[in-house]
């Protein structure tokens, strides 16, 4: 007997909601200050709301519900590429990191035209640089090398 997906989700969310509630209990309430409601009550109410809706989700889960098909490999690799991009921004700075990431990510997302991907990636990198730096005067990550 396989557990319905919504019930599995509810189990995870109940644990998460419990952790939030625990965190809410640990908020220290300053003594001696006059306030009808301190910093703790609202998070406690939210925690109860999270827990109640998660429990209700588990109770009302039906066995027929199916999750949409996901290509985990593509999802994980594109998420990892994005993570690497954020790290690369800090290391090598905007220009090389962005041009490289655009080529990599568009291929991970299914593009198969090298010439087009390279051209468009460089064009996007240059135009974003133009908009952010030149037009709006915003700063872009320069990295350790920059």
């Amino acid at each position, binding site marked *: 007997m396989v557990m319905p997906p919504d019930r599995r989700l509810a189990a995870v969310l109940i644990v998460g909601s419990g952790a939030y509630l625990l965190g809410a209990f640990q908020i220290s309430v300053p003594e001696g200050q006059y306030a009808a409601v301190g910093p703790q009550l609202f998070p406690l109410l939210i925690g109860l709301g999270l827990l109640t809706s998660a429990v209700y989700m588990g109770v009302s889960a039906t066995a027929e519900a199916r999750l949409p098909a*996901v290509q985990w490999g593509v999802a994980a690799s594109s998420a990892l590429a994005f993570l690497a991009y954020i790290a690369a921004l800090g290391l090598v700075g905007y220009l090389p990191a962005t041009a490289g990431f655009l080529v990599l990510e568009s291929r991970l997302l299914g593009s198969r035209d090298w010439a087009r991907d390279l051209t468009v990636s460089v064009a996007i990198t240059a135009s974003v640089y133009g908009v952010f730096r030149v037009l709006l005067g915003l700063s872009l990550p320069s990295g350790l090398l920059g």
Partner: protein
Amino acid sequence: MGALAQLGDNLALGFGAALAPLNLLLGLVGVTLGTAIGVLPGIGPALTISLLLPLTFGMDPAGAFILFGGIYYGAMYGGSTTSILVRMPGEASSVMTALDGYEMTRQGRGGAALATAAIGSFVAGTFATVMLMLTAPALVELALGFGPTEYFALMVLALTALGGMTSGAPAKGAFATFLGLAIGTIGIDLQTGQARFTFGVPGLLGGLNVVVVTVGLFAVGEVFWHAATHRVSRETPARLDAPVRLTADDWRRSVPAWCRGTLVGFFTGVLPGAGATVASFLAYAVERRVSKTPAAFGHGAIEGVAGPEAANNASAGGSLVPLLALGIPGSGTTAVMLAAFQMYGLQPGPLLFSQESGLIWGLIASLYVSNVLLLVLNLPLIRLWVRLLHVPRSLLFAAVLVFATLGVYSLNNNLFDVAVVYVLGVLAFFMRRHGVPLAPTVLGVVLGPLLEQHFRRAMAISGGDPGVFLTRPVSAAILALTVAVVLVPMLVRARGAR
């Protein structure tokens, strides 16, 4: 007479701002961008406005809101094009349009379908803006007497309605709402100085920036989801052979449908939680019900395009009424717009109408201008918009990630915010996979701190008596309405099950 003269003054002020060259240009950029994202499936107004938030940080607020208003209206126009020509709705609010619109294209009447959608959108958008102009100040008058109790009740209603309506499973909508409220509690409590859920991380002390949250959930989450579910970007050839115009018979059938769709759409838009998608579904149902030939629906009935397309545009105008007059958004896009107001340190509501009347009336006037621009841009350029579908989706989504990253980085020049965006993007991916709606979470994050503030103020005034929410008539009535929003669908479901 006094009220009319006042309205005239306000409009003159508004058009003065909206027609200033820079703002006119921003309006044009907004409607063009809005139409483009409306055409492109997967990229909607909430995502686009959230991506632009960091970029508009240094701009004059009036110009930024004119840009956002143009995007919002433009997306409603653009969404219909692909529905009609290739049965691929650019937005959820154009799903109903595909039913009869695509059939009309197959019968060689795609031009008429596009024309009725564009003219209907113009009629509805203009009417909704007139209604916005007339009803928002009236609501402001009413809201002047509101205190923290009433605002608390209104926010509870907005959160409940959106949470209850955007998902098939009420428990998921409720969880999404509480999740947003929980994210909103991160950071230092401003009243007592206590840190909450910061885990000793200095970057969390100021709380999560609403811009960071909206970009993470809407933009990055959308790309991750797209990556996981669409391996090969489908590039559907779209063809339009028929001329874009209406015959006398098309006019005769379209005009009443536009009027009905406009009314349905506007009032649905004003209600929290309902929004453009519900409005278009309702309008389609109304058209089918009043039709003498309901069997023709789904087989190319022009009313099935005219009604829903008018409705989704009118609902955009309607949803701005509670946002501007009360500061209460009722949909994902208006929640992002509230985040934009907060970014500028502005709180929409009665005070904003008196303190920033140039901004508010400039925005309202720009909506009239946007409508005219959209009609001019849409019909003659329809073939150009269709070509947008040839842009490879893979590059488009990769560019969204770059834009999201750099926009968020530029807010505070740190990569911590970018890391938060990443985490929220992963969270949004799993929420979508499990059918948990994102809009209530964003609304929760945006409204949460205000909700708590009003709650604590009301409790302080009442000396800690929670009965105050029920003894003040307006807040009691709003809370009763909130209970009805929860109970009525449950009762309907229970009766249906029997």
